[in-house]
């Protein structure tokens, strides 16, 4: 036993050492390969979190787009921590990167993004922000205007909420009587918010309901009613801020324990900030015998159009989602990155994109509705 342990510990240590050596040598050979094929351009790409589903698809698309353009780059995982990301940026700048591509952790904070712009300006290199907002809505012009070698590629945060609201409204106007299970003339809904203090979550939570109500009122139908009248928030939020299926699932099963058809107060509509949460809700409904593809269905709406959500929609277990175009965003970022490598203006050749009317270096990648058709 003792000998065995000694042997095992030696093996363990040597395995660790081997893996370190292996990692070191492989990245060495990578760099040398790439430096031969391209100029001395080297871009640091900073993601807010590797664990985010949507960002993972952007990462895959952007990796291949940058590789395709022959640009050398390195990916970093901020692990949902702005301090970590800032330190990574400092390190990358000291290593001599020629441009920064930043998916900022603290979404919607002008201070955080200004700090990164200042770092880039001091080093004299361009910075491209993407996906997560660099400042509160309406104030991003100040941040983006403070440095000429910077740009933003993202989505218009309120747009997803507006589109989701419109989609829900249209669906309800068409199917009002089937959705209104207890026939009380109004539809009670549950809302699942991904995270407190995140602009995207806030707008989606707000506009999904407001816009749906607008459509309903225009069609002469009553507005939506939040299922729990004593909850003044009008939503249930993932307390860990992870937009997670688990949180939505736990809430929904708990809700269904008191709001169900036998009590005549069933939740008749579920609106989710993202598709992960929608999946959690569908799973909870499945357990209660709903949304199994046949029979009764509670309409569930999400945002992102992940593959999993698309399959649910096709199977008739979910109604619709709002597509965020990961490939489109990656292609646009790669084009801007290529500009920085070729020493062109950062916004060169971007006429085909939707550019913000007020801010010349802010590009919107439009959302699209997805209902399986």
């Amino acid at each position, binding site marked *: *036993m003792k000998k065995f*342990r000694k042997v*095992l*510990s030696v093996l*363990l240590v040597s395995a660790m050492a081997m893996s370190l050596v292996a990692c070191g040598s492989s990245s060495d050979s990578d760099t040398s390969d790439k430096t031969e094929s391209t100029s001395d351009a080297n871009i640091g790409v900073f993601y807010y979190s*590797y*664990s*985010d*589903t949507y*960002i*993972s*698809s952007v*990462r*895959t698309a952007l990796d291949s787009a940058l590789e395709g353009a022959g640009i050398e780059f390195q990916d970093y*995982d901020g692990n949902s921590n702005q301090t970590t990301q800032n330190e990574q940026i400092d390190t990358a700048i000291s290593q001599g990167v020629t441009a920064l591509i930043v998916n900022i952790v603290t979404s919607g904070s002008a201070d955080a993004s200004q700090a990164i712009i200042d770092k880039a300006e001091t080093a004299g290199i361009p910075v491209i922000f993407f996906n997560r907002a660099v400042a509160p809505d309406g104030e991003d012009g100040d941040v983006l205007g403070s440095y000429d070698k910077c740009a933003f590629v993202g989505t218009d945060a309120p747009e997803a909420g507006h589109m989701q609201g419109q989609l829900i409204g249209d669906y309800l106007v068409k199917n009002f009587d089937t959705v209104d299970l207890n026939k009380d003339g109004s539809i009670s809904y549950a809302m699942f918010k991904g995270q*407190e203090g995140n602009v995207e979550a806030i707008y989606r939570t707000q506009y999904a309901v407001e816009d749906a109500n607008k459509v309903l009122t225009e069609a002469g139908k009553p507005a939506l009613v939040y299922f*729990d009248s*004593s*909850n*003044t*928030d009008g939503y*249930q*939020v993932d*307390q*860990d801020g*992870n937009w*997670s*299926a*688990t949180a939505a*699932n*736990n*809430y929904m*099963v*708990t*809700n*269904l*324990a*008191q709001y*169900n058809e*036998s*009590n005549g107060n069933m939740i008749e509509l579920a609106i989710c900030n993202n*598709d*992960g949460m929608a*999946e*959690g809700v*569908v*799973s909870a409904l*499945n*357990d209660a015998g709903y949304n199994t593809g046949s029979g009764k269905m509670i309409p569930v709406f999400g945002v992102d159009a*992940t*593959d*999993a959500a*698309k*399959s*649910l929609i*096709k199977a008739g277990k979910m109604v619709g989602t709002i597509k965020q175009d990961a490939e489109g965003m990656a292609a646009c970022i790669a084009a801007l990155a290529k500009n920085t490598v070729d020493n062109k203006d950062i916004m060169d050749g971007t006429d085909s994109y939707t550019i913000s009317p007020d801010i010349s270096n802010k590009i919107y990648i439009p959302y699209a509705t997805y209902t399986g058709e």
Partner: protein
Amino acid sequence: MKPFANIQNQYADLKKMNSKEKLNFWKEFLIDNSLYILLFIAILYTYFQNHRFLSTSSVINMISLSAANLPIACGIAGTIVLTGTDLSAGRIVGLTACMSAASLQAVTYATKMFPNLPVVPIPLVILMVIVVGGIIGFLNGFCISRFKLHPFIVTLATQLVVYGSLLMFVMVNGNNGQPLSGLDDSYKKFISGSILKIKGVPIPNYVWYGIIVVAIMWFIWNKTTFGKNMFAVGSNAEAANVSGVNVARTTILVHTLAGCMYGITGFIEAARIGSNTANTGLNYELDAIAACVIGGVSFVGGTGKIRGIVMGVILLRIIFVALNFLSVNANMQYIIKGLIILVACAIDMRKYLVRK
């Protein structure tokens, strides 16, 4: 009949006391059981605010939410008994959940991770997650006992290693970090299907699995030499060593067993939630540790009962459900949960100091 005899003895003792001692006895009784008394008041209060709180469906919901959290809590409790902790629990749950989901996706599912893989037989998958969890647990235990490292450090490190592997795993085969879902029906039925209904409300199968796990863990803790050794090592490792207990082997076994429990949790969670990403399992260990501590498994080491862990898990879940039934603001929920953990630990420590 032992508990009954205990109560009789206590009652006899109580009768012998004079008034001052009696007062003291009741004071002690109230403080020692204050958590349960508070819980009782909380349940009554919630019930009077919202009568549906104690309806059949709501009670079954509380039981199922607790059952899902039992295996991980039972696993982590052993490491706390050894005066340690295990920070890698949540990530191991995440990894095993994703592995279970990947092996049991329906063959017809469009974005199946391994398109050519048939639906793996369920017993094989259970074996796989238990082995994977067990191996990581073994590594934890091995490093702790062999290199004399604090479990906090070791599991902090393995947690990162496991998370990294998990991130790689969800990226393989062009999955690109997309959620693993589209699980096979047999798997979903196995976990969240139901063979028993009470008043028309189905009891999900994973409740039974939770109960089985608790029964096995109770047996291991109370009826085996290994269980006795675990408490001996937890109370005083030196003394245990002198009296012939193999401390290193006990430590390794406790951690391996804990790892197996996380594997089972992962297997259940994958189907219960139905959508598995790299974030699955994040922070699960914190709730599990909180449940153990509330249930009287002390960080001082060497104390703890399976009964207490079950109570702790149920208490945390009842609080979650009650706060929702009362529509308490999310911000308040953090504060309430924090205070409960603090009060529970304070009471626990007080008992320990009195004993000393």
